[in-house]
């Protein structure tokens, strides 16, 4: 088992905090734009995690993964914003609670 040095642990704490803030944001915020930002926060928390581990393990794989995640997150934001714009055109609102045609 790998022992985690204090510096790495600090990064992990930061990452865990950011991830939790993002998750809570997705759950409690009702504005779709804020939800999208919270999702980005979660993905970036993962990036910090991967880079911290990559540095700690002296392995490049983690950093390569981060580049992939950044690229995909950009695509995700594009698709998400397109869906939000469409929602706004139909309802003149970007509030999650407005979306209740489907009973779930």
């Amino acid at each position, binding site marked *: *088992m*790998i022992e*985690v040095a204090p510096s790495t642990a600090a990064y*992990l704490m930061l990452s865990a905090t950011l*991830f939790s803030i*993002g*998750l809570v944001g*997705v759950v409690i915020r009702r504005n*779709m734009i804020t*939800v999208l930002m919270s*999702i980005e926060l*979660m*993905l970036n*928390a*993962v990036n910090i*995690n*991967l880079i*911290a*581990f990559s540095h*700690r*393990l002296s*392995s490049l*794989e*983690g950093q*390569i*993964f981060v580049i*992939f*995640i950044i690229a*995909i997150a950009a*695509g*995700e934001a594009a*698709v*998400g914003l*397109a*869906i*939000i714009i*469409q*929602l706004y055109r*139909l*309802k003149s609102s970007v509030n*999650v609670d407005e*979306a*209740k*045609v*489907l*009973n*779930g």
Partner: protein
Amino acid sequence: MTSGDIVFLVPEIILTIGACALLVFPVLGKRAAAQSAKWMMIGLLAITAIAVIVSSHTVTDFAQSRLFATMFAVDSFSVFFKLIFIAAVAMVTLMSEDYFRDSRYSPWEYYSLLAFALCGMLFMASGIHLISIYVGLELMSLSSYILAGYYKSEQKSTEAAMKYFVLGTVSSAILLYGMSLIYGVCGSLNLIAIDRAMSTLITNDALMLGILLLAAGLCFKIAAAPFHVWTPDVYEGAPTPITAFLSTASKAAAIAIFARIFYVGLQHFQLDWSFVLATVAALSMIVGNLAAITQDNIKRMLAYSSIGHAGYLLLGIISMSEMGMRGVLVYTVVYLAATLGIWAAVLMLQQHEYAGEQVEDFQGLHTRSPFWAFAMVMFLLSLGGIPPTAGFIGKYYLFAAAIQSGFGWLAIIAVLMSAVSMFYYLRIVVAMYLREGKDAQVSTAGSLRFVGAACLAITLFFGILPTPLIRQVETSARWVAARAVAVPNAGR
């Protein structure tokens, strides 16, 4: 990596070029010929399928099948799943034609997105490295979010896309967090290296949290309870051919990576994760099948039923044996054939966008269309696991594997819930045969009928003569499960 490896990527390369071509064609002034979009897509799928088969024949031994610095595997397991995905997307393509005839939406972008999603699924089937698995998964998911919202002027469709997008990306983030923890503990993102590292590890909190988060993300993707809340809404709101795509091909792709990650990468900690997944499986079977009883909308009913089927499929992964792997593969084929057939029947009743979705719409179908009524009965029996159909073979393998691995209680829940599922499946049969029918028209599109006939043929053929399927599945399962069987719970 050698430059020769590129030969094995030919199917994916063809598919990507084809998907781009589908986007470019209408710009060149060919938009009028909407029919040609479908035939181009079918042609593209046929070429891809041939490329998959040809490229797989050049691989003979295990070491040779690991390509691109062991990121990409061309083995019997991946080829099996790739051919299933291509066949399922071909069926969805054929089903979509009628749906787009009077529609305001262009079929070109639609087929292009389907092709991109399929490309992602091919990478998922072959991925043996967490990066390639994740990139494939996201390519499939991003295309699916757009496809779910393809009817952009319909509120339902846009809302489905929004819900799918938010929950899908959150689950991806959770999955990634799990992957990052596993990377930190094991020092690699490669499934084989993870397995090697884990064989020397003892249980520790970071690793357990990583595995749990990874499993939670994957359970969302296969729509297992308690991560299933998005399923009924998205299935109801999305255009019906896309619902068919999400409930079959997309779910099968998620099951493929689920099986690959847990059988190859995490097998040493089976004792730790199997009880968590067993709870998830039991919950899925109970919640899915009980909630389906109360549904009147056929799309929502099938959504809950698909949650139940995710639970059955999990039995094969939990049991962690070659038998379990065979069960997963057989059940995937069986479930896809029956479900695609049912969706074809639902589309046959749909004259325009959201009509013909209630159970009552099936009333008196046997006088209007005896073929579809008979086919529907066979599909429903197959989903319920009744002997003359292929569903029985699939359930037999899964339940037997669960009992062999000491999950008898789970098998009992599965059998009980299969009985419960027959209750709401038979509701449709009763509506078709015993109730007076309305005079609603039935679509007579040739391609829908072809899909129905093909699914019926698969369901009956493998039900009566399962040997060819079983033989193929035994080979494919061995590629992934062989080592799991050789060293059960080693390192514990």
